[in-house]
Structure formats: C-alpha cells, structure tokens
C-alpha cells in the first residue's frame, strides 16, 4: 500500500494535494468525539454517502432497464422478481431516495439551527438550495421509471399541476411530456434527465458546495 502510494507520489506529487483535502483540524464544536451533539454536523457527510449509494445502485439498475413503455416495466419486473439480489438493489435505491430526502432536510435544519447560512456563507446556502431542488428532481423523475400504474398516474397528476402555472404552464407541461399525454417520449426524457442531466448538475453543485465548505471552514458559534 505505502509502496504503491510512494510510486504514485514520486511521479505525480500527490502529497500537497491530499494535504489540502484531508489534513485539517475539525474544531471542537463540530467534532462528535469532543461534543456529542456535534453529530448534527455529520448530516452533510451522510447526505454525500447516500448520494454515492444512489449512484452505485442506480448504475446497476441501468444494466437491466430499457426506457420504453414495453420494456421498462418488463425490466423492472425482472429486476424485482427474478434477478438475484435485484429486489434488494432496487429496494436500496428506493429507500435510499427517501433517506436522501430525510437527511438533506435534517442537514438543512442543522444549518438553520446554527445560523450557518449567514455572512460569509450566503452563496453556499444558495448552492445548497440548488442541491435540494436537484434531489427533489431525482425523486420526481425516478417515480415514473418503473412504468406501473402508480408511476404513470402520479406523473400524470404531477405534470397536470404544471399546466396550471399562468402563461407558460401549457408550454412547460407539453415540454415535460413531449406531447399532450404521458407516453413514450415522457418516459425517455424523464429517464435521460434522471440519469444524465441531474447527475451532472449534482456533481457540479456538490463540487462548489464542498469547495466553499473547505475554503470558508465550518462556521463557529457566535
């Protein structure tokens, strides 16, 4: 292990980089080993962990999933009922989505409780809101993908709500559906948004989030 590291370090000069990432002090008020209540400062890290879990399980689900009305249901049915551990992986992805919502919510509560959105962290708060909306977007688009009755009709209701927005509602709803009814085009675009657009958005804004957290340090109580 250390020899591999030395090999790489000699050639790529990794140490300064790793130091920058890992070698810093966690202040006592945010350190659960010193202050047990500081566990609330772990919520952000747990969010990250769940999102990684979602990516991993999601990639496995993609192996058997084809986004067309005929194949989507068959694929999920196969994953759920025949594939070894398929039901478990799908279950983790589904429960993980709930866990992500809960943890992001709790993390946000912690930031409000400790007043951490204040100067100079306003920008990171706004980045956080983008992350929240991204997570909600994952939930909304993912719900359609199994293409069962619940998926289909819940999405129909959801998109119909968009229709009631003044002026642009009809246009937005048609753009979401790719037509006048939820159908093949809707499935394909929800799928693409779920596995390409939102992950890209997530990675970009997570990078910004973590860059700012490291740059500004964790807020301290005043």
């Amino acid at each position, binding site marked *: 292990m250390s020899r591999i590291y030395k090999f790489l370090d000699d050639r790529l000069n990794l140490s300064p980089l790793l130091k920058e990432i890992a070698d810093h002090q966690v202040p006592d008020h945010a350190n659960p080993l010193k202050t047990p209540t500081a566990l609330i400062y772990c919520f952000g890290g747990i969010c990250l962990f769940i999102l990684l879990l979602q990516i991993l399980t999601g990639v496995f689900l993609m192996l058997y999933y084809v986004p067309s009305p005929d194949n989507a249901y068959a694929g999920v049915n196969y994953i759920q009922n025949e594939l070894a551990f398929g039901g478990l992986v799908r279950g983790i992805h589904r429960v993980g989505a709930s866990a992500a919502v809960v943890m992001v919510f709790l993390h946000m509560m912690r930031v409000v409780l400790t007043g951490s959105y204040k100067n100079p962290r*306003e920008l990171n708060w706004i980045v956080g809101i983008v992350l929240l909306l991204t997570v909600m977007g994952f939930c909304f688009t993912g719900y359609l993908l199994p293409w069962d009755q619940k998926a289909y009709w819940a999405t129909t209701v959801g998109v119909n709500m968009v229709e009631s927005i003044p002026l642009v509602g009809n246009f937005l709803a048609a753009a979401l559906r790719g037509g006048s009814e939820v159908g093949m085009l809707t499935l394909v675009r929800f799928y693409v948004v779920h596995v390409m657009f939102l992950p890209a958005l997530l990675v970009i804004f997570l990078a910004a989030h973590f860059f700012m957290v490291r740059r500004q340090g964790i807020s301290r109580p005043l």
Partner: protein
Amino acid sequence: MMNRDAPSATQAGNPGSFYPNHLFVESLAALAVFAATVLAAYVWQVPLEEMADPGDTTYVPRPEWYFLFYFQLLKYFEGPLVVVGTFFLPLLTLTLLILLPFLDTSPTTDIRKRPCAAALSLAGVVAVVALTALSVVEDESHVDKIVLPPITEEQITAGREIFNKFCMLCHAIDGKGGFMAPDLTQIGSRANRAYIERVIINPQIVSQTTIMSVIPLSDAERHEVSAFLSRKK
C-alpha cells in the same frame, strides 16, 4: 468572519484531525444509515404494481410519502385558486429560502437570539409534518369509510342476492351460474375488494373488449357485492 482553523499539517492522529479521526466518526454514522437503509429495503418489499394502463382513468395515484404534504396542501386550493397552490406558494417559499441569509443579517448565530428566523423555520417544519400526518389520516379514512365501508354480515347477505340477480347470468359461483365469464368462487383469494369495485365500475379494466357490461348499481349495492365477493376465498 473568515475563520479558517489553521491546518497544522503534522497533527494527524490527534482527536481533532479530519483524517483519520473525523472521517472515521463520519463513516460510522454513514454506516449506521446504510445498515438501516438495507434493512428497510429487505423488510419492505418495494411495490411494483400492474403495468401502466393509460386507458384506466379510475386509478387514483398516491405520491411518494415525502410529497404527501404538498399533495395535502393542494386539496385546500380549488377551482381558480389552484394556481396559488401549484405556483405562487412554491414560488414564495423558494424566494424566502433564497433570501433567508439576506433577511436575517444580525451577526449572532445563536438560535435563541434570532426569534424571527427561528419562528419562521419552526412554522415551516411544523406545517410540513402536520400536512403529511393529515394526508395519511385522511387517506386511511377515505379508503375504509367513504369508498369501502367495513364488511358486515347483512352486506354479505344482500350482496349474494344482488349477485344472483345481476351477475349469475354470466358468472358461475359455487358450481351454479353461467359459463360466459370467469368462475368467481375464489375471487377473494385472487383479488382485493378495491379491485372488484373497480371492475364493477369499469369492466374494461379487465380487458378492453370484455362483454361484461356496466351494471348500474348504487354505491351501497356495489359495496354489498364487493363485500360478498371479497369473502369468497
């Protein structure tokens, strides 16, 4: 207010270091969440319902639990007010959230000295929790009382009569009746009561070309037949 805690490079190993100490604690917490997630996924078989049928407009969908509060909120805005629930309230919430750091500008971070921010966020949390709870409660009473009253012996007896009168022409039960339609002797073990109700309301959900006709039963009569049939196991 920049407060970078001076990273002293050689302190790895003391209890305050990010790596490895803090990362270890953080990993333990994540592991606990992971274990809970896997356990829940294992115990709770994630549902997969029938394949989507765009023709079946009788299906009443439920959103995932974390959207229930919003679903409940929308129930209070009807007709021309719908747009308040679907557009103006979300817009207002989002604007407030984004502006929070610029509205709450006092330098203190102590929650006790920020009554406005504290009250507002508490109100938000309470509203979300209360609406979710309300939605769950209303939902249960909806399924049990309004759509499906509890099954009584009178209902079953009355249901048998209605069945003999309207359904036996086509359906056989306990060895008697027609042969143009599936034998319903064990329908209760194949299908739940809600499904039976939906078939009676709209026979086409069984098949687009079915010969089963829509039989004009009152709500009470329909409940009686479905009570009778759902007990045939």
